[in-house]
């Protein structure tokens, strides 16, 4: 019972955050709602026993990725969005498609697979075991992902740096007075 209550509370917070993301017109509000969603999702993970996932969710998603978003919003000084009407397709096809798809999926989930029940801490994911999995069963994906991250870092640096400094190259940057 307690489980259901906690689940419902944080589930509602989650959904509220998601909806708030849609409703808010200022990106920083949307970003903060997303942080709320992520935080409550971390609690849901904890409920499922995935303590390490929950911690990483907070540290990486809320603590790093979203900070990056907020940082960019601040950097670009993004204002409230203007409701331009650039796309009829999104309204005519996208929204109905999305609705149809989610209704279908929800129907299938509720009708056909609603038998399983999970208890609190259904599957503990201790860091030790997860680390073992990562470095044994999933070693190749792990290494590939690390390469991906490296590429992403370099890509981000190149993309975000000023075009002039890229042309000049790092070696020819003028020495700063120190």
């Amino acid at each position, binding site marked *: 019972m307690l489980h259901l209550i906690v689940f419902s509370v944080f589930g509602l917070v989650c959904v509220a955050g998601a909806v708030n993301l849609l409703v808010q017109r200022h990106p920083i509000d949307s970003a903060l709602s997303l942080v709320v969603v992520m935080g409550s999702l971390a609690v849901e993970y904890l409920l499922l026993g995935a303590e390490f996932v929950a911690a990483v969710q907070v540290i990486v998603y809320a*603590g790093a990725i979203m*900070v*990056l978003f*907020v940082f960019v919003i601040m950097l670009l000084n993004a204002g409230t969005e203007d409701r331009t009407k650039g796309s009829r397709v999104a309204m005519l096809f996208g929204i109905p498609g999305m609705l149809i798809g989610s209704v279908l999926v929800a129907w299938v989930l509720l009708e056909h697979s609603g038998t399983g029940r999970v208890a609190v801490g259904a599957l503990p994911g201790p860091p030790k075991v997860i680390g073992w999995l990562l470095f044994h069963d999933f070693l190749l994906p792990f290494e590939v992902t690390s390469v991906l991250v490296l590429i992403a870092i370099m890509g981000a640096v190149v993309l975000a740096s000023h075009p002039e400094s890229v042309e000049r190259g790092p070696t020819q940057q003028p020495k*700063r007075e120190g």
Partner: protein
Amino acid sequence: MNLGEFTLVAIVKIVIAFIVLLTAVAYTVWLERKVVGHIQNRWGPTRVGPFGLLQPVADGLKFIFKEDLTPPHVYKPLYIAAPMIALIFALTSISVIPVGNWITVFGIHTPLEITDVNIGLLIVLGITSLGVYGVALAGWSSNSKYSLLGGLRASAQMVSYEISLGLSLVGVLIMAGSFSLRDIVDAQGGTFWGFIPRWNIFQGQIVAFFIYLMAAYAETNRIPFDLPEAETELVAGYHTEYSAMKFAMFFMAEYANMITVACLATILFLGGWHGPHRFGPPLLQAILPMFWFVAKIFAFLFLYIWVRGTLPRFRYDQLMAFGWKFLLPLAIANLVITALIVALRA
């Protein structure tokens, strides 16, 4: 232990923890003013109470009774929320930090911390990583260029240094093999050859301690990395537009963070509540561990203040270069070497 008892104990512990923490925050401020004063050949606070000991109380009263000013053109919801976010996260992280062994009081056996979780370190890291929102949002919502610059600096700086901070801790984690702060402290009990304590700092993690120290200074926006509030260039950085209690919240958050960091350093590197062999009567023996713990925290805080009174401020690009080009590779090297040594020893 039934639910009611559990709740009661939890509430009691929370209350005690917060009272102690807030007091500690207040007296850390006093300590800082006093020490910096002496470093600069001044007296520091002397007027209120003996040695100015009542100065924090006076300051608190002043903050509470000041007019709560909200400048125009600020983005109000976030302007109000930002200091709260900062303070809440700063205070929350103390909840998983153990200050001593299990004790039995009034027949209740309980650990000396608010809650004992097996991923305590991760929770502390998570909560402190959320603390940056307070600073960043304060800077942005103030709608002032000084604040914005401060906020930008803060978020970039904290995200950057968090990586080195996290990596410096991994070495300790490998040595202890657990995320639980209590396990980490327990792993540091005993001595080498009877006189060198088996603290992590003496077990080859001295480099990690150095990285942690640097990253922690940056994370708490302290000199020499206090760029977000660099008063000579940004007036007061992200809290330029804040006053009265809201300003006090930022102030308290900063010192609470310092204490958290000091606690963490004590637990991870300085052997927690382990100290010299126990002596004296049983009561003393029960209290001594806590004394060692507090003493170490005090030493760490003193180091903080000492550095503040001594070092100048870094330039921003120097800060970033230091973090990415020196600390991060060093942390990675330390991690690799530690892992190698542990693997070889196993």
